[in-house]
């Protein structure tokens, strides 16, 4: 990642430390057994290790929800913030500290419901941040309420006779936002595909939005049952510039070629609901990155005082 406009003293760029998976572990995860969040955590820790990201240079920001417990389980800096508000926090971190590697973890309620305005606008700002939306189609932490991504008819504590509305389509929504630069979908049960997706997201220069279909055995076991049992229900978006996972391509035989620079086709594919589609719907590396757009030269205290005095001169009586 690029280091711009940041007045750092002390820097660990030339150190010779190295980190293994365990070095990225913090508290013991407290998710239910079988919860898809565990698999995502593993994939993320694998990424950190492969990329050898210094823990102190890495920040995980989250909202509130089961998924938002994520930062507590990673040995890095973290900010477990407010429900729905992870993205502004992350933007604040990144815009003033482009030297840090910033990851965001959100739930579907967190991101798509209460956080919707920030989701839309952070997509538009396009900071170089990796955003993972762990989509279990339900409010997990608060114990089973309908989320915007709950399938129509899904019975929850707040819509006991079944969800009233069609599920929101977070991929299509993100694609509709100007400056969307990386939009991908993966599932917690395809470890290599998550990993490859995370890697592509991390490598992307800009805001990477990754929707991870996440199993919640506690409340929405049924919504991915089909996907678990029947490889026919899955289709992979494949392309040389897309997400490549040989393992996954072995398991899932439906492949649809899709050039990730083709926004309209990505949108079309996102609208289809016959199958679950995993892969990279859209990528555009030409969109300016917010913290670079907003990067300004730094100044010492003395320089500031000098400029301030010039400014005060203009107001002198």
């Amino acid at each position, binding site marked *: 990642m690029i280091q711009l406009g940041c007045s750092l003293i002390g820097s*660990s760029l030339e150190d010779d430390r190295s980190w293994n998976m365990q070095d990225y572990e913090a508290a013991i995860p407290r998710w239910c057994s079988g919860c898809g969040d565990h698999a995502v955590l593993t994939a993320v820790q694998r990424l950190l290790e492969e990329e050898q990201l210094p823990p*102190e240079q890495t920040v995980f920001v989250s909202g509130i929800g089961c998924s938002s417990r994520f930062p507590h389980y990673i040995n890095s800096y973290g*900010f477990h913030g*407010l429900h729905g508000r992870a993205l502004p*926090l992350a933007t604040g971190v990144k815009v003033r500290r482009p030297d*840090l590697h910033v990851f965001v973890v959100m739930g579907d309620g967190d991101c798509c419901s209460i956080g919707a305005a920030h989701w839309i*606008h952070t997509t538009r700002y396009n900071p170089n941040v990796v955003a993972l939306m762990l989509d279990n189609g339900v409010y997990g932490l608060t114990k089973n309420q309908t989320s915007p991504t709950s399938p129509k008819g899904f019975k929850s504590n707040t819509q006991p006779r079944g969800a009233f509305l069609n599920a929101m389509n977070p991929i299509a929504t993100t694609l509709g936002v100007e400056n969307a630069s990386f939009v991908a979908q993966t599932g917690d049960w395809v470890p290599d595909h998550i990993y490859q997706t995370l890697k592509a997201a991390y490598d992307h220069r800009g805001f990477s939005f990754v929707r991870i279909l996440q199993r919640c055995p506690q409340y929405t076991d049924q919504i991915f049952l089909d996907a678990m049992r029947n490889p026919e229900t899955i289709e992979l978006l494949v392309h040389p510039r897309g997400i490549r996972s040989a393992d996954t391509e072995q398991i899932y035989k439906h492949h649809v070629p899709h050039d990730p620079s083709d926004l309209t086709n990505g949108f079309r594919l996102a609208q289809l609901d016959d199958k679950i589609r995993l892969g990279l719907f859209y990528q555009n590396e030409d969109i300016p990155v917010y913290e670079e757009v907003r990067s300004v030269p730094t100044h010492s205290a003395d320089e500031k005082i000098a400029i301030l005095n010039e400014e005060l001169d203009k107001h002198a009586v």
Partner: protein
Amino acid sequence: MTTSSTASPAGEKKKARKKKGRKTVIKTAEHTVEVVSDSGEGAQKCAQIFGRVSARMGNGVWTVEIIPAEIQPPPRTPPSASGNRIRIGTKPVTNWGDAAHLMVAFNEQVLLHRHRAGALADGCIILIESVWETHEDEDIRNEWAAAMEELDGHDYRFVMVPLEEQALTVVENPRRGKNMFALGMLANLYSRDLDIIKDLIRHEFRKKAPEVAESNIALLELGHEWAEANLDFKVNIPVEAPSMPMVVMNGNQAIAMGGIASGMELCAMYPITPATSASHYLSEFFENFGGIVHQAEDEIAAIGVAVGASFAGKVAFTITSGPGLALKTEFIGLAVMTEVPLVIVDVQRGGPSTGLPTKIEQSDLLAATFGQPGDAPKVVMAPATMEECFLCMTTARKIAETFRCPVIVLSDANLATGVQPFARPNVDRTWIAAPLDLSPVADGQKPYAWDPQTGLSRRVVPGQPNGMFRATGLSHDEDSKIGYSPDVHERGCEMRARKIAVFQQTLQPPTVHGADEGELLVVGWGSTMGAIEEAVDRAREEGLDVSSLHLRFLSPLEPGLTEIFSRFNKVMTVEINYSDDPKAPFITPENRRRGQLSWMLRATTLVDVDCWTRVPGEPLRPGQILDAIRAHVPGGAK
């Protein structure tokens, strides 16, 4: 205002005419001028330059904007009134005064607006555009006549001025010329230095073609000559050369520059009147200092970005007004809980709800102090002058950083748009936040290593090796580990409260203005200081035994108040917020809504602190306060 008038508008209104001989000179220690036009005719520009040249020449100055509610209200209607009041004095001027002694009005409707607002002093000299009285449009003539009828019987002196006619000799569109002609007139009347004014005009139009400035200067000179030839008086406000270099700006500029001077480098905001102009200033200049303004999608995101940036390094700030403060409620609680330093500026306007967007009120004190669900100790402070707007930003930043907490700065619309000269701040390195320190954290140093006595702990920021922790708004221990047990929660609450008590112990008791003891102590906060102290001075001159006390820290309160109050028979706050009239129907001491500061003082000191408050949507006038003092002090009622 008496109605015994020596000059009825119909009767004594005179076409200005050539004067031979000497002019009357009104020598005075202070004079209050208003310039009002239809919105868009530039009275504000005229008045601002007039204020500025007066400041440069060494006079005390205080200006207040007269702002219409709409962007483009219909011309020639009272709501269209736009302009400024400029109060000029030999000594520093601390408030907008009671009423104008001289008024320049571009039409009779905007004059009516000011008249109805009680803005004209007895004997006020009104320089008014002459074109309307005899306008070809009958409706206009009728409007003029009706206005004169309404004004009839008041002690005003009218002077007719052919503003438009004269302006047309220089420019084609008089709407763009009358203001500079008026400025020339004022320059003549108050003997202002034309060279300084010309410089100011050239600066004002520096981004336009040079002809623009030159035609404005031509208008200025025309106005000056015209006044010299046609007006029979001058006003002389002697100057006492200030002993130190001065600067002049409004409170929002001062907040913005003060923010820069404090070394903060990120302001995240969402536009809202009357806070926005501070971010306009910052948007223009902050980048020169390595800072940026992030205009967020809403106020929640704005404070979120600020909290994120503060978490990641130094101290960021956000600036807003009432409705925006409401939206920041939840995030302020998070900043308290995670001990992220943060400065929140609330430029107060009239409330509740959208209320009076452009007008002053001091009614966010309780919301700032108690807005958060749960116990959320933080610091709330309020500057009282433009100068304090500048200075308080560094103070706020330092408190936020030292005590790891949010600091709310309550400014208001009066400070925001008012202009006053003040001693040029001497910014040195101690003002400016230290650069990021990313040195490794000592083994075993915890992210919230609370000192058990003081609750203070050393901040750890991302990038520091060995310091990794996860901040959380959940109840947590010194390691920032989530903990729901009674001891963890009680400990955290205690430590977050303790450090604010420690902060309070670092403050000095405030200084009483007037005598140290007596009948009545008036307590104020924020922008009312000048008006209150002027009222107290006038009351003391009348022999009334009254003093005043002005608070800068509202939560925690400055120490020693109980002791100070004990030296007075009666204590009463003067505030611009709502309180019930104790004599109104159904109002009892138990259900009376009270001035917000008085409420806090009562709870803290148990002294029976009364309050005298108004919500007029404009600054309080010293005369009003004086009346209130008279009503509350023995021997005061006349």
